[in-house]
């Protein structure tokens, strides 16, 4: 039967096959093969991390066995060690505190500025807007050295989480101003005018009408600032050496590697526990982030 199929002429074969291998099917096969390829690339290191975090020490060390599967029973030992023997919970709490206050400061700075740029006419408004957008490009790598001195000599905040709270809005605010500007522009000006006709002052109109209407925008910006705060590495690495003040990115990467000794299981467990929540939050924000960038391009 099978060999018979090879005997028919090429056009006939194509005809015979066509009901099954339709154009749509072919397309979908290509799509799924492509997606599978990218899924393997994207997930391979993460799966390795996940598997390692549950591996018994003996299983991890044995190099003869394939690394992707368990050869001894999985264990929660690394996770319990992480919670009981390290300061993981303190680091996680620090990250939450730092990111929370980063959000608060960012909103205090960005909301008024974004409103002014979106609604008010004043000289050089356009230039201010562009200037703020450009500051988003200033890389932390140019600033961490002088900021270390400022934070240790001018204000005594170095080596505390408050150093990061003070500095993080430098990279969250510019983009948030830009995003909020877009949100404010989508609120019809008539709504605000109506409130003013009804006797609201400009400030009251902002507080009672504009801000409640832009809650989705404010939330988006808050999530963005929060995730950026949770992701940051350079400043935290530079400013904080006291283990009790470290955010989780630094705590996990520096305290679980002691000299040449790597606590692989704990490292991977900590990295995943700290990283996955950020990924989930960021995923919510991703589309808005792209929108913000496109807004710069087309408007």
């Amino acid at each position, binding site marked *: 039967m099978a060999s018979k199929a090879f005997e028919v002429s090429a056009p006939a074969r194509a005809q015979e096959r066509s009901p099954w291998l339709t154009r749509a099917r072919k397309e979908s096969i290509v799509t799924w093969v492509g997606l599978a390829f990218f899924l393997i690339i994207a997930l391979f290191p993460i799966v390795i991390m996940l598997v390692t975090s549950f591996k018994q020490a003996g299983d991890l060390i044995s190099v003869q066995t394939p690394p992707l599967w368990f050869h001894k029973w999985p264990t929660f030992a690394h996770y319990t060690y992480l919670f009981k023997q390290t300061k993981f919970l303190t680091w996680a709490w620090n990250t939450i505190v730092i990111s929370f206050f980063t959000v608060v400061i960012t909103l205090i*700075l960005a909301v*008024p500025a974004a409103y002014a740029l979106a609604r008010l006419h004043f000289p050089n*408004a356009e230039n201010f807007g562009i200037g703020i957008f*450009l500051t988003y490009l200033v890389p932390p790598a140019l600033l961490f050295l002088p900021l270390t001195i400022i934070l240790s000599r001018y204000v005594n905040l170095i080596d505390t989480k408050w150093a990061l709270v003070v500095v993080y809005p430098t990279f969250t605010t510019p983009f948030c101003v830009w995003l909020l500007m877009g949100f404010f522009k989508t609120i019809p000006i008539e709504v605000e005018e109506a409130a003013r006709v009804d006797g609201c002052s400009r400030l009251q109109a902002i507080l009672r009408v504009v801000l409640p209407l832009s809650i989705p925008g404010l939330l988006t910006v808050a999530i963005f600032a929060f995730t950026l705060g949770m992701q940051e590495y350079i400043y935290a690495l530079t400013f904080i050496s006291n283990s009790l003040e470290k955010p989780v990115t630094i705590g*996990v*990467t520096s305290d679980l590697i002691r000299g040449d000794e790597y606590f692989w299981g704990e490292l991977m467990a900590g990295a995943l526990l700290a990283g996955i929540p950020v990924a989930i939050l*960021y995923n919510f924000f991703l589309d808005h982030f792209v929108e913000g960038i496109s807004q710069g391009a087309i408007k």
Partner: protein
Amino acid sequence: MRRMVRGEAAFGYLLMAPVIIYLALLLLYPLLLSVWFSLTDASTGQPFGSWVGLKNFTDVWSNETFRLALRNSFIFTFGSEIGKAILGTVLAFLLLRRFRGKKVLRALLVLPWTVPVALTTLGWLLLFDPTFSMLNRTTSAIGFPYHPNWLGEPVPAMIAIMMANIWRGFPFSAIILLAGLTSVPPEILESAALDGCGFLRRFHYIIVPMIAPILFIGLLFDLVFSFTDLSVVYLLTRGGPENTTHILPELAYQNGIQGGDLAQGAAISLFMLPVFVVACVIMLRILRRREI
């Protein structure tokens, strides 16, 4: 009427004041301070040293490790950018297709970008580790012949840090390109096709000009962040083996903070300034052009 306008301007400046003061104090001032440090003999113990002119820059320039770091920075950034562009483009066109479970799959595919880079780099550290060499064990299982000591030899180490960086960044390239592609209204493409435009001409005359600004801004962001991010290199190689994989931000950190030589660290980091300025100028031109 005029009084009202003036009132509005004052209100505008009042609302702008907090962010401008904040950015002036914590962004502009440190930048200037950095320039000042680079012209003195400042150290972290004695940050306000005395003037030495351009000595730090000439010292740094004549230093072999620095020149290698400068070269590495460009190789690292542009090499990564090429890798990200290729993978990102293919992925973007894949995500443009219709398939089931798109939301979930996209969330999984962007994980390299959404999990903090410092944490996923730990995964790469394990993959490259010479004792466990998870990567080599996996590639030899599927018959791939190249099994170097990734972080222990100069060339493999450069490839390793670029691999980790490409992996980290390609989902972002894909997402940006996807945003550009979906911003081209399909009607325009259809009518062009009806008018007898082939795919290549449509690509050249419609798709590229329409998505170019978005791509440019995305690319600029990515270039600046790639060029100035130290986490991948710092966590994977710390510049080793034998100082062959330093990049500028990581070298500035090692010299300026760990070595305590503030002046030289500042000088090294200021070599990144031109890249930033060029990026700013291009960005400005894009932002201005959209006004027309």
